[in-house]
């Protein structure tokens, strides 16, 4: 099992290197350390959200409201900033708000047993709608934001901006959380076999709730980073980003049926998409082609994941017990 996981991540790493090599042949400056650092910074929001989405998917759920939560928290950050609230308080506020938004999703899934795809489909439109109610559709533009607000994610420490350091810190926290804590094991247990999880004393609902709170919290934090970095906030920021996030997870080998995935995989899945997004214009491929190419990347990744999971020799009846949106192999 770990052998397959390891080799899957190795293959993904090779794919990323191959992608970089391909781009470098056309445009060598792309792989200069400075540019790669920029790509890494650019991809940081995707990496952070992919980790949040990963824990949700691990527990057999999905969070389609992640981008809407990001946008709502980002807008609230912008509004607080206009009201003159200091950065530290804003950071705290968006994290708490994000956690609350995630908790709302989580409660509906946990206490009422509503399928997560239905819950988050609903909250995704509700959260975005709330932005409109807060602002009446107005934008917050760069000149309305205080210089400190915009400068924080860009401030350079040891050659990387703060945003990148936050991403690195979150990856490190996740590496510990997922592999070294009871909660981390619970995510895998709940997704791998809910029945067995219950018998070992793990509450399925509570674990799913925790996953949603984590994904909401990360969306909240990213909301501030996003708005401050791009120096604009409006209703539709990060529109459709939830699909990029799911795509990053899928490319990173997180099984959509739950129970399998890794921090390294999710990070690399996000990096793969991020590098592609940055490289296409550089090598002269129309940015309009990006959507089709990421579609193909997702399909290839799923086909590959399915092949490697089939090698595990799953029992046919086990699949019948767990009716999910997964197709039978």
């Amino acid at each position, binding site marked *: 099992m770990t052998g397959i996981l390891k080799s899957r991540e190795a293959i993904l790493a090779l794919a990323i290197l191959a992608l970089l090599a391909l781009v470098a042949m056309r445009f060598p400056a792309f792989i200069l350390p400075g540019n790669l650092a920029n790509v890494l910074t650019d991809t940081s929001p995707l990496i952070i959200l992919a980790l949040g989405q990963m824990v949700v998917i691990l527990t*057999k759920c*999905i969070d389609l409201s992640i981008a809407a939560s990001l946008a709502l928290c980002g807008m609230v950050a912008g509004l607080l900033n206009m009201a003159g609230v200091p950065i530290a308080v804003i950071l705290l506020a968006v994290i708490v708000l994000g956690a609350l938004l995630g908790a709302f999703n989580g409660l509906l899934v946990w206490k009422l047993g509503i*399928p997560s795809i239905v819950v988050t489909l*609903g909250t995704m439109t509700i959260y975005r709608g709330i932005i409109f109610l807060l602002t009446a559709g107005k934008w917050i533009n760069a000149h309305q934001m205080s210089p400190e607000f915009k400068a924080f994610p860009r401030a350079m420490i040891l050659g990387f901006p703060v945003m990148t350091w936050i991403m690195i810190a979150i990856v490190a926290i996740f590496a510990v959380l997922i592999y070294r804590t009871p909660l981390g094991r619970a995510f895998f247990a709940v997704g791998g076999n809910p029945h067995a999880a219950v018998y070992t004393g793990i509450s399925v609902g509570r674990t799913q709730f925790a996953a949603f709170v984590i994904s909401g919290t990360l969306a909240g934090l990213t909301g501030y980073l996003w708005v401050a970095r791009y120096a604009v906030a409006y209703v539709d920021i990060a529109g459709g980003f939830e699909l990029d996030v799911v795509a990053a997870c*899928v490319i990173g080998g997180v099984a959509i049926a739950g129970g399998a995935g890794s921090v390294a995989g999710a990070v690399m899945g996000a990096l793969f998409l991020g590098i592609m997004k940055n490289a296409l214009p550089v090598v002269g491929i129309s940015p309009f082609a990006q959507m089709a190419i990421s579609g193909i990347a997702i399909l290839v990744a799923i086909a590959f994941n399915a092949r490697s999971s089939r090698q595990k020799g799953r029992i046919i009846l086990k699949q*019948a017990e767990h009716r999910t949106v997964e*197709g039978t192999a």
Partner: protein
Amino acid sequence: MTSTVDPMATAPGRGRNIPDRLVPGWKRALKSWEALLFAVAVAIFIANSLASPYFLDPWNLSDASFNFTEKAIIAFAMAMLIIAGEIDLSVAAIIALASTAMGLAMSAGASVPVLVLIGLATGLICGAFNGFLVAGLGLPSIVVTIGTMSLFRGIAYIVLGDGAFTGYPDAFGWFGQGYVWWVFSFELVLFMVMAVVFGLLLHATNFGRRVYVIGNNATAARFSGVRVDRIRFILFLLTGLMSGIAAICLTSRLGSTRPSIATGFELEVVTMVVLGGVNILGGSGSIPGVVIAALVMGLVTFGLGLLNVPGIVMSIIIGALLIGVIALPRLWKMART
């Protein structure tokens, strides 16, 4: 009561509750999801006619039907797909691709029948592609269709960039703007015909029974001789075809094609299906439910539109409706026990 995981998991030892005697049919019908939804629809209808004097005008109601007919005809096919335990998130992208294909053909001087054929064929090809990946290769449909959603719409973006196809022939406008009889537009008639066709297909044929069987237990279905993958493939084909038809109507109604056409339709279609009482995990649901859900969504949007409520506020209400109608019965059940 179903949840994302098997209910057994959260309550060990409590199996599915099978009553020892059946409640009379009319009593069951009264307590059904469709009846509840129908009551909601009637309430919204009455509230709307009280709130705005313009609501009860037949022509206004006919105009209002345009904002749900295209989504509803996809929702019928999507309902069957979801009952069978699959999902297709690429329907809006299929519309974009089919519309782009028709635009290309139009630029090359194709006649109206050819445009229609191209729209239908593109839908079928996209559906077949989804069906092949899911039924043929055994990949999970939710991620497959997230992928094909990017792929199909991505192709539309490659062809069109930030441009648009305009100048469709006048005769083509009939599908989205023409009337068959009095206030009954082509789209409204199409909606009614498709409701009957899909209602019969799901509730009165062997094929329909098999769809339920697959949704409840695909493995048992396989052992009972149901050709599970073939039916799954056909369902994707049907959903693709309906998306192609919707593309024809929408393109004809708008008179132009942009790559961003029908953005977000997939979520509204899924909302319609779930609101109609179809279990998102498969195995149960009905076409009449989806029909009423389409009417509810159409009435809500139209009524709020008459009251000058902005579109995004309507989407909050649709979102709240989706969660509310599913949460309320469960909350009620919890409060009673």
